[in-house]
Each structure stands twice: as structure tokens, then as C-alpha cells.
């Protein structure tokens, strides 16, 4: 078998090798150019970002220290009492966690309703007026481009402290994000049912109800659940700017160095987020299953 290896004439081989080397060299060239640009950017960023390696090296031991500090003083001998001491404020924290979840829920729900109302007018296949489409698309873009916490900051000034500005901020951001995703789903539907409905003289609302909704509803629900998951994380920090939920307590604990409180609240938040993730994942898979069965 070894004899079957093809040997090119020397001249041709040299040509092929040269071409190969040139190709590799060009690739390397581009890679090095990219790396050089990246290095310059990193250097500039380091200066602007006040990165001081020496100082960082001198202070890096504070990170494990900090983690050690926020870890609760648990011992096997008195584990139950220690845990009770660690989560001393559990009742209040759970109440705030429920508030946080409700903020996320209401924000998602209001945003969902708004996105549902607007998304059909942002699609190329259901909205014939270019101007309407343009205006609604830009509006949705604005809603999702401004970070929700910025809306929360503004709304806290306008509506006063409390969960209400948090809900509204999440709702506006959700409206923008879901509106875009919904519009994309609607643009990908099969248009034959729509044509059928229009041919029978159905109005716009009826067309959407009977020709569009059955095709998109499970996708809409799936996106809404995913958004709820994201909003739970978002709602957990709304308290940082005074917009309700558990964030307020976390911020106080961090600022005032109530070390074991920090870890307790963080654990509660992480547990909540993980549970919500698992539940919504289940629901979304069920929805996708529903979709495939039809």
C-alpha cells in the first residue's frame, strides 16, 4: 500500500508547496495583525480602565479573604443553631424574594401584553404601511436598548421609591425585547392560513386570531418564559436603585459589611434563580413538545 502514495514531479510539488506556504503566511499575517490591534486596544483600555497589575497583585489576597469572611461560622457541633443564626432574617428575606418574583412576573406580563399588541404591526408580512412598521420598530429598539436599571432610576424619581418603578422599568425593557422576538416569529409563519382567512373576508383581528395565533402562540409563550427567567435576575438588582425587591437588603448588607448576611442573601438569590430556570426550562420543553405534536 505504501507504494501507492502519489509522488508529484519535483517542479509541480515545489509550486504546490509555495502556494501552500503563501496561503499559510497570509493567514499568519492576518492573525498577527489582529493580535497586534488587540494588544494595542488592550493596552489603551488598561490605561483608561486604571488597571494596575502591581496593585492588583498586592491586593489579590483580599478576594479569598472576602470569601472567607462572608462564609458563615458553621460548626458540626451546633449546625442547626448556626444555620438558624446565619439565616436569622429568613422570614423577611423570603417575603422580599416573593416581592422580587412578583416584580419579575408583573414586568414580564405587562411587557408581554404590550409586545403582543405591537408585534404584528412591526412585521413585514402583516403590516403594509412602511411608516407604521418603521415607527414601531424604532420604538421597540429604543425600549430594549436603554438598560432597564436606567429606566428604574428615572421611574424612582417620577413614581417614588418602591416596587412599582421596578415593575414598570422591567415592563418597558420586556416590551422592547419581546416585541422584536415576537415580530421575528410572526415573520416566519406560513402565510397560507392568513391568505385563507383574508379570502373569507376575515377582519385583521380575526385573521390574527385564527390564522396567525395558532402558529405562533407556543413560541410566544416560550420566549415569555425565557424573558421571565431573565427578569428574575433583573428584579433581584432593582433594589440597588430603590425599586423594590431583595436588592435593597443585599446592597445594605454589602455596604455595611454584614458579612454572613451577604452570603445568606446571595445563596437565596442563586437558589431562586436556579429553581426558576429549571421550572421554566421544563415548561418550555413541554411547549416545544406541544409544538411538534401538532
Amino acid at each position: 500500500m505504501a507504494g501507492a502514495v502519489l509522488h508529484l514531479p519535483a517542479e509541480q510539488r515545489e509550486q504546490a508547496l509555495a502556494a501552500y506556504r503563501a496561503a499559510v503566511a497570509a493567514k499568519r499575517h492576518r492573525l498577527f495583525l489582529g493580535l497586534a490591534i488587540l494588544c494595542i486596544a488592550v493596552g489603551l483600555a488598561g490605561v483608561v480602565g486604571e488597571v494596575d497589575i502591581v496593585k492588583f497583585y498586592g491586593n489579590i489576597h483580599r478576594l479569598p479573604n472576602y470569601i472567607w469572611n462572608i462564609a458563615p461560622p458553621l460548626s458540626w457541633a451546633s449546625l442547626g443553631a448556626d444555620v438558624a443564626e446565619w439565616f436569622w432574617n429568613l422570614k423577611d428575606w423570603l417575603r422580599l424574594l416573593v416581592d422580587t418574583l412578583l416584580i419579575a412576573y408583573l414586568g414580564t406580563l405587562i411587557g408581554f401584553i404590550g409586545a403582543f399588541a405591537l408585534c404584528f404591526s412591526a412585521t413585514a408580512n402583516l403590516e403594509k404601511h412602511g411608516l407604521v412598521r418603521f415607527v414601531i420598530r424604532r420604538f421597540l429598539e429604543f425600549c430594549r436598548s436603554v438598560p432597564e436599571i436606567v429606566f428604574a432610576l428615572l421611574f424612582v424619581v417620577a413614581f417614588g421609591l418602591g416596587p412599582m418603578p421596578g415593575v414598570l422599568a422591567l415592563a418597558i425593557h420586556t416590551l422592547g425585547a419581546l416585541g422584536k422576538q415576537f415580530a421575528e416569529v410572526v415573520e416566519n409563519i406560513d402565510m397560507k392560513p392568513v391568505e385563507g382567512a383574508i379570502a373569507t373576508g376575515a377582519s385583521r383581528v380575526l385573521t390574527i386570531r385564527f390564522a396567525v395565533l395558532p402558529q405562533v402562540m407556543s413560541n410566544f409563550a416560550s420566549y415569555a418564559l425565557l424573558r421571565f427567567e431573565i427578569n428574575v435576575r433583573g428584579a433581584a438588582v432593582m433594589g440597588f436603585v430603590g425599586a423594590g425587591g431583595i436588592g435593597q437588603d443585599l446592597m445594605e448588607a454589602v455596604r455595611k459589611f454584614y458579612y454572613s448576611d451577604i452570603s445568606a442573601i446571595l445563596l437565596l438569590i442563586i437558589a431562586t434563580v436556579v429553581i426558576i430556570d429549571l421550572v421554566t426550562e421544563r415548561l418550555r420543553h413541554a411547549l416545544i413538545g406541544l409544538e411538534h405534536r401538532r
Partner: protein
Amino acid sequence: MKRAARDIMLAERHDLQARHAALFRPRFGRRALVAVVIASLAALALYGFWRLEFSFDRLGSGAAQIAHIIAMMFPPSPGSQLPLFLHALAETLAIALLGTLAAAILALPVGLLAARNVVPNIFTHFAVRRFLDAIRGVDVLIWALIFINVVGLGPFAGILAIAVSDFGTFGKLFSEAIEASDKRPTEGILSTGGSHLHAVRFALMPEVFPVIVSQVLYYFESNTRSATIIGIVGAGGIGMHLTEQIRTLEWDKVSFLILMILVTVAAIDWLSARLRLAVIGRTSVVV
């Protein structure tokens, strides 16, 4: 014409109903389910509104305030603080770039560890995955708050916050990209006598690297967004000025800062999309 077709169908309704009885039969089970779902969603919403103390009074007065604020926002103007704002914007970009890069470099080995086809140890796989999940469960603002305690106020805390929070995301995404890779090149390297490290370098990396780069670029864009807000807790960047101007009710500066953020994010969005296409080619956009 439309009317006519509809009228004909309506006239023949009973005939149609007789022929396609199955299609016309109301599905009570399904309807009941939908009604129950909607009713429980609405009930939960009502409970939420009550518990979170929503009131039409506050909504009304707040809306009036918002209208007032929006009126005050025009025209947007930086006042005399334009150089300060521009510096903060540069700081924001620096935070996003360094944070994303650090996260990517740290996450690469962890992504390998969490990939089932590289480290076929189920315990490592499980432990690393859960660890990454826990990191991702914490919002970047919380990380920023914590790192302020560790390294003090300033952009460096922001860089670390973004690096850590993205480390969790990248670890998961990279390991998924690695698991989705074709295993034949790896087998080829191993069959010629290469070590496992050789296989990772010469078979795995060339395949997953473009995907990884595209994900990193995508997150660079999303981190620019995050970097604009971590200043709210004092971790550097333009968010600090934004908070300050909102607190002092300088609305024309607030709207100017928001415009700056929007323009920057749009520019980075454009840039990263271009770079992504350059790295992975136009045909296979994987995000």
C-alpha cells in the same frame, strides 16, 4: 368579492358542519384549560398589584412627572462636562473589552473541563457545570458591588465584575461548542500517535475557535451595555455620571448621556457584527 365568498360559506354553514362534524365540535377540555391558565395568570397579577402597592393615584401623578421630565430633557446637552463624559465613555469601553477578554481567557480551560467529550468524568462535568450555573445566577451588578469591597471604587472593580459574570456564561457556551464539535479530527490525531493535548490543539481548537470568537464578540457587545450601568453602584464608567445627573435632576444632561450610551452600543453592535462575519464567514452565523 370577499364578502360574497364569506356569505356563501355562512349560508352553507349547516351543510359544512354536518360534513366536518369533528372540526366544528367545541373542544371543552382545551377551552377549560385555556380559561384556567388565563384566570390563574390574572389572579396572580391582581395579587401582585395589591401586594406591591400599585395605585392609580401614584400611576397618574408619576405619569405627569414623567411627562414633565421628558419635556425637561429637550434639548439634550452635556453642559460643560463633555470631556468628563467622553472619558467615562472610554472607561466604559475599556471595562467591556478587558472584562470580556479576561473572561474568555479564563473560561477556555474551564470550558474544556466541562465538555463531556474532552473530560469524560461525569463528576467533573457535573461539578463544573453547577459551579458555572451558580456564577451565572448572580447579576453583574451584584458582582460589581462585591468587587468594590475587594478592590475599591473605580473601573477595575467593573472589569472584574464583568470578567467573573461572563466567565460563567462563557464556560457554559464554550463547553457546549466543544461538545457539538465533530469527533473525527480528534480521532485522526490520536490515531497518528498524538497526545490528548495535541488533539485539543490541532483537532478541536481549529474547529471551535471561530465559534468561540463569534460568541466572545457577541458578548463584547452585550458587555458594553452592562458596562454602562455598573457605574450605578460605583464600579466606573458612564453609569456613575448617569446616576449623579438623575439624582441632581439635570435632565438635559441625562438625556445626553442616554443618547451617548445608545450611539455607543449601536456602534459596537455594528463593529462586532462586522468582525463576526469576518471571522466565521457569511454563511454560518452561530451565536
